């Protein structure tokens, strides 16, 4: 199996999973059922996490099926580069919006731990964002289908694709990042700032669960989680700048693959602390139950691993 296979496997999740999440959210809103809303937020958040490797493996799939000759991309005769880049543009837009939706879904889940009802401003934001994202995602999926299934293509599609021959958005953003000498270092600096915010949250929350500073209740350290998700947001944004600017450094870099796998696992891990009552009930002076300690230890392992793989990108991998 290569990364092109992985993309073919993963690419169904964002559209179908997001559709299910959105449908469930609708039902939850109409039925005024907070548990259904909560379940749909979990789905929307998880799909946003899975969208990360989906987008990245798409860039790798392009690399697999087409060659780069002197900076220009040459695809086999039966494949249209224009169609691929159309797909990439919509996918990038849908991906960006999906991450923003996932962020609001996360905030909703975080708030619902303390106040059982989802805030109406957040419900509106999630609903609007999710509908727009789903629309963009459907177009991206449809464009993606056209790449390998010419039989479903209408003559109209072909004409539009040819008329749309232009610099794809991902390349344009990447070229912009490269063209400004200050931009890459600035993103690196912000990536480090985000790392500090994320890591301190990981440290405070997990060390408390493991038995450090027991006079603090879990509910108190839980208030720090948005700081961690803010750090993650900064790093996802700046990380994407690196990826768009120099995809060749990452798509065939095993350290990067491991880093992204760990990011997905860490995304699943954080849900333990938000959904399960065991950790939540740890009051001031209490010892956390073993299952919470295991989750905390896994979390520390994953984030140190993400730091390790990120740091090793230039040394064990091929990036600079």
């Amino acid at each position, binding site marked *: 199996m290569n990364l092109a296979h992985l993309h073919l496997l993963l690419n169904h999740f964002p559209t179908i999973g997001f559709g299910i999440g959105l449908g469930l959210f609708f039902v939850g809103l109409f039925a005024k059922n907070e548990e259904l809303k909560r379940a749909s937020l979990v789905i929307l958040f998880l799909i946003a996490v899975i969208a990360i490797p989906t987008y990245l493996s798409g860039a790798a799939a392009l690399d697999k099926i087409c060659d780069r000759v002197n900076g220009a991309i040459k695809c086999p005769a039966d494949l249209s580069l224009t169609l691929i880049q159309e797909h990439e543009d919509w996918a990038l837009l849908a991906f960006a919006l999906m991450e923003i939706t996932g962020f609001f879904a996360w905030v909703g889940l975080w708030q619902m731990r303390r106040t059982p009802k989802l805030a109406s401003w957040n419900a509106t934001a999630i609903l609007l964002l999710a509908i727009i994202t789903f629309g963009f995602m459907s177009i991206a999926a449809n464009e993606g289908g056209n790449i390998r299934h010419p039989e479903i293509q209408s003559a109209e599609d072909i004409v539009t694709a040819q008329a749309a021959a232009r610099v794809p958005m991902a390349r344009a953003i990447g070229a912009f990042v490269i063209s400004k000498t200050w931009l890459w270092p600035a993103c690196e600096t912000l990536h480090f700032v985000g790392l500090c915010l994320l890591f301190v949250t990981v440290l405070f929350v997990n060390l408390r669960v493991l038995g450090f500073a027991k*006079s603090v209740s879990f509910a108190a350290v839980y208030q720090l989680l948005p700081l961690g998700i803010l750090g993650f947001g900064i790093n996802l944004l700046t990380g994407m700048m690196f990826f768009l600017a120099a995809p060749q450094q990452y798509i065939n870099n095993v350290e990067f693959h491991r880093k992204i796998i760990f990011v997905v696992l860490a995304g699943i891990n954080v849900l333990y602390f938000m959904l399960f009552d065991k950790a939540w009930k740890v009051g001031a002076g209490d010892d956390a139950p073993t299952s919470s300690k295991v989750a905390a230890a896994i979390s520390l392992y994953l984030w140190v691993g993400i730091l390790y793989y990120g740091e090793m990108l230039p040394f064990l991998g091929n990036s600079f």
Partner: protein
Amino acid sequence: MIEFLHMIEESAFSTWVRESPSIWSFPVILLVHTVGMALIVGVSAGIDLRILGMAPALRLAPMEKFLPILWFGFWTNAITGTMLLVADASMKLTNPDFYVKMAFIALSLINLSMIRKYVFRDPLIETGKFSSKARFLAWSSLFCWLVVITSGRLLAYVGSTSTYK
């Protein structure tokens, strides 16, 4: 002076840090330096943001227990930082950016000791109300660490290029 710096650079240890193909030399030293940074700036920023009103249910007083983690990070980075410095002494020590970084590390630590003195030792700490002085110290701490990270990151980009590169 520059001869002395070259002498340091040419020592067996410096050469090993710089040129060894082993992952245990430069890559792991840099990794430990990054983790150390996360411990120092992370713990410090957590305290600063708490003073500024984030996570109100989290009492500040017990957060002092995290300061040993900060100091562990600090000494780790003092050691790994020295290792990285001797490997590239003539470039780093002639780069103004390096001195900016060192100066702001000093300012950050002075700032931290003032937070200990005026915030943690303040008998009113348990009330959760922080004076404007405490808030100023929190902002200046965040600013100083930001300069440290930025100037540290920029060491890879600005100044004269190492003769070894």
